[in-house]
């Protein structure tokens, strides 16, 4: 890379915090799903020009300004998860934000925490729970950056039902724009604390993100306030046999109760979920379909297959988990009675095996502490997975359509033998958000990254599923679409816009042009300032 620029980075950060060691740089191309755009070994195609390690907003600003001056592209990286985090082309300067790891403030009365990019959900949750609060730890896991999720990515989590999607769980934000200007969204911009991210006047949160964030395409977020919510359980949930199927809580929280109901049909399951939403009794909800659940239970694939064979016949198809947490014994009692009534009305039955000690403890931890898709189940059988319908937001009449559609299409691909056989029942999801006002579903799909035909099958399945959703006038799941678009070297928004009733690209592109005049922020997951040829 440009030596002059490199020296400037060194002068800003000190030589210890800049590197262009090829071995080190390759680490920034190594990502889950890198195989979709690069080699089967998960390395993406583009090695960064250098990596910088800023520790303050001012240092971030200085790096961004140097990049603008020298015509370099840059991309921020916090905890990184998936090919979104890879550089999108040659010569990108990475800003690894791991030194910005301060949990600056927890405001108990206004229920928020101010965090830097490298504060992870687990860290935030541990501090919050000591204060009777909790956060919306996302499905990607408790080891991911809270700030990156709230400002730049998604926000699906089991407790979305009671605490909402993370697009709305951010308050004030500090943002280094792609041209190096710093803007503080909402109240921090007026020197009025972190209490609001909207205003004065029109809210700039509207360009920061939508259902998804800009995924690095619109600058670097350096601080934000994340909303916290009441947690009625104990300050800690100590357990033994951690990270195993035998994990047990030392003491089950007295004000929590787990329900695992199952139903004759998806329609009845959705009906029960809608009633749970309207009655506002659920703290956390989750779907882990039996095909996915039973894929990676054992210590190896053979052991998993044996366990699957014995377990599968006992697991019903349409079940979900629902955790009740009362702030008093009376509230828990009321919630329990409502749940029983709803199950009675919707012919739901209790999957008792899952409600008993053992599964109960694991599921409860999963629902409280942020249930990632179980990493073992999705990575160990074949080496990798990718969600179909990642970003499929539905409502009352569309969730089941999306679930059925994905299952039907996927079955064909499983029959080809190129994808793991999850019986086309690989769903993971919080199912409902905001007490049923939004619904969500995604369908994990295990493939073998070392077999190019398997990766290709995954891509073709994703394309076919998304096309089918678009044909049915249902939402096109962006997070799935962006990966296949990148795999094909296409612009993701070009592939979506054709289905829309107005060309949203016009506006998004103008945001990019206005706020990134030198096209310095890596746009591989966002939009380019000019249409691609």
């Amino acid at each position, binding site marked *: 890379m440009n030596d002059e620029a490199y020296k400037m980075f060194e002068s800003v950060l000190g030589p210890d915090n800049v590197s262009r060691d090829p071995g080190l740089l390759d680490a920034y191309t190594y990502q889950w799903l890198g195989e979709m755009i690069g080699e089967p070994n998960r390395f993406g195609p583009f090695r960064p020009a250098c990596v910088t390690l800023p520790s303050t907003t001012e240092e971030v600003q200085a790096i961004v300004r140097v990049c603008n001056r020298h015509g370099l592209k840059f991309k921020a990286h916090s905890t990184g998860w998936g090919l979104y985090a890879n550089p999108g082309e040659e010569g990108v300067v990475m800003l690894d934000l791991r030194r910005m790891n301060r949990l600056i403030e927890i405001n108990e009365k206004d229920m928020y925490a101010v965090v830097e990019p490298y504060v992870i959900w687990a860290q935030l949750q541990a501090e919050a729970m000591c204060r009777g609060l909790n956060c919306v730890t996302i499905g990607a896991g408790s080891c991911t950056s809270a700030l990156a999720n709230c400002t730049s990515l998604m926000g699906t989590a089991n407790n979305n039902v009671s605490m909402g999607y993370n697009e709305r769980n951010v308050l004030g934000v500090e943002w280094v724009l792609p041209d190096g200007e*710093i803007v503080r969204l909402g109240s921090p911009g007026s020197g009025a604390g972190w209490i609001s991210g909207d205003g004065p006047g029109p809210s700039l949160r509207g360009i920061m993100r939508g259902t998804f964030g800009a995924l690095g395409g619109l600058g670097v977020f350096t601080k934000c306030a994340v909303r916290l919510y*009441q947690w009625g359980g104990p300050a800690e949930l100590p357990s033994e046999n951690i990270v195993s199927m035998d994990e047990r809580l030392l003491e089950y929280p007295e004000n929590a109760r787990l329900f695992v109901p199952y139903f004759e049909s998806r329609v009845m399951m959705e009906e029960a979920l809608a009633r749970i939403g309207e009655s*506002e009794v659920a703290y956390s909800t989750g779907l882990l379909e039996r095909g996915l659940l039973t894929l990676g239970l054992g210590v190896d694939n053979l052991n998993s297959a044996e366990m699957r064979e014995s377990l599968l016949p006992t697991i019903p198809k349409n079940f979900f988990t629902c955790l009740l947490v009362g702030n008093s014994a009376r509230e828990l009692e009321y919630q329990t009675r409502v749940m029983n009534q709803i199950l009675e009305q919707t012919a739901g039955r209790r999957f008792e095996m899952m409600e008993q000690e053992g599964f109960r403890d694991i599921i409860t931890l999963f629902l409280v502490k942020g249930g990632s898709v179980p990493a073992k189940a999705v990575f160990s059988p074949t080496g990798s997975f990718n969600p179909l319908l990642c970003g499929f937001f539905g409502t009352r009449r569309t969730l089941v359509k999306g679930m059925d559609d994905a299952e039907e299409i996927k079955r064909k691909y499983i029959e080809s033998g190129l994808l793991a056989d999850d019986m086309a029942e690989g769903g993971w999801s919080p199912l409902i958000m905001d007490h049923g006002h939004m619904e969500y579903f995604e369908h994990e799909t295990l493939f073998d990254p070392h077999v190019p035909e398997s990766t290709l099958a995954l891509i073709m399945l994703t394309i076919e599923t998304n096309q089918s959703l678009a044909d049915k006038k249902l939402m096109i799941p962006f997070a799935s679409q962006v990966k296949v678009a990148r795999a094909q070297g296409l612009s993701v928004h070009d592939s979506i816009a054709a289905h829309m*009733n107005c060309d949203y690209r016009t506006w998004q592109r103008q945001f990019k042009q206005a706020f990134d005049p030198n096209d310095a922020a890596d746009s591989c997951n966002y939009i380019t300032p000019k249409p691609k040829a």
Partner: protein
Amino acid sequence: MMEKEKAVGVVGAEHVLDSPEILKRYSCDMSFTPSRTPSCVVRPNSLEHVQALIKLAAEANTPLIPVSSGEPRFRGDTVPTLGGVIVDMSRMNKIRMVDRKDRVAMVEPGVRFGELQTALRKEGLRLPTPLSPRQTKSVVGSCLEREPHIIPKYHLDHSEPLLCCEVVFGAGDVFRTGEAGGPGTIEEQQQAGRRQKIPMEIQMNINRILQGSQGTLGIVTWATVRCEVLPTVQKPLLAASDSLQQLLELAHWLVRLRLGDELFILNDVNFAHLMGTKLEMVNGLKEELPQWILLFCLAGYEFLPQERMSYQEKDASEVAKNVGVPLYETLCTVSANDVLARATSPSEPYWKLRWSGACQDIPFISAFHGVPELVGVMQEEAAKRKFPLSHLGIYVQPVCQGHGQHCEFSLFYDPTSPREAEKVKELYFAASKALMDRGAFFSRPYDLLSEMVYNRDAASREALRKLKNIFDPKNILNPGKLCF
């Protein structure tokens, strides 16, 4: 300037108004915004009308000032700064959809709270509303202003309860926000079972940009709003104290534990103005009431409503006991039921004008700990200018599920007294500045305060000007407002 004949060609002669009496009504409002007479008022009735008007205005460089709500107006945002044409949206007053299953309604800008609530009630739904809005207040207008409502647990975000909308930008393009943008047309989406509920686009959220823009970026032609289940039983309760801190503490825990639905705090003056039915009663209440009053309402829905009420009442009573505040069903002869009824219904005449003739509001957002201090700042500023505290209304509304407090000071005065009006104007500016200096966040800077607000946040001002240039490059929509 847009020729009248061309506007007539779009909406018809009967919907282009330019009599001096009509123009005068749009030339000023109850605020201190300098009056300016528009050239005419046009009343479109469709998306196509709005598109055509924007096209004409762009060709003729004519300012358009969109107005949804009826009189009396208060904020100065619909008073033309540079003259131009008023686009009165009140003819677009259809409720296009109410859907019980998805708890959503689609309304045009001319729909008012009273009409919508009646339609929703028939379906077992309700829309959380601002505190007793005036009868002429547009639902869409209120959403676009980020006006807070009185049910904190359903105030999921400052954008609530707006979901999706259809807008014509100043650049002339039609855009549908959130999932309303596709795939498919609105009709195709609805046929597929979609109800325009997801408010975000893929990587942007145009709603957030439109909200708070005071009609400077686009004109909205319909919107969907998030509705909630109508309670089957309700029990409102009152708490009162001379300590604001005590009631804030109570409110914090009730909201945090999600006990109750409607919840707000008023000072004695606002409470008397809201609930008084005769002047003697207003004055009597001001004398008798404790300084601060909190209303919250327990509710039961479809499932085990009485049981819900019962546990909530017991838990809420424990919270109140811990805070040291008794709960009442009646306070100084005013029943909690009456307060709830008044607070959740549109008022005519508007309660802020019923006893004083005029009112200047100062709305802002504060952190929890800032509220008592900011109340003190306001009282000090009032005292400095000999403005009687008996004319100072205070409203504290927990917002965003307890992540912040909306505060609103109301300066009640007699508009027929120029001296009094001048004193209130001075106080309005001085107090607003003092409040900003002490941490109040003016998230909705109306008219004359805009400069003061944006001078504190130059980076946001510059960013917003870029947005204005994108959505309304010719600056035809409500020019002169905010920082545009």
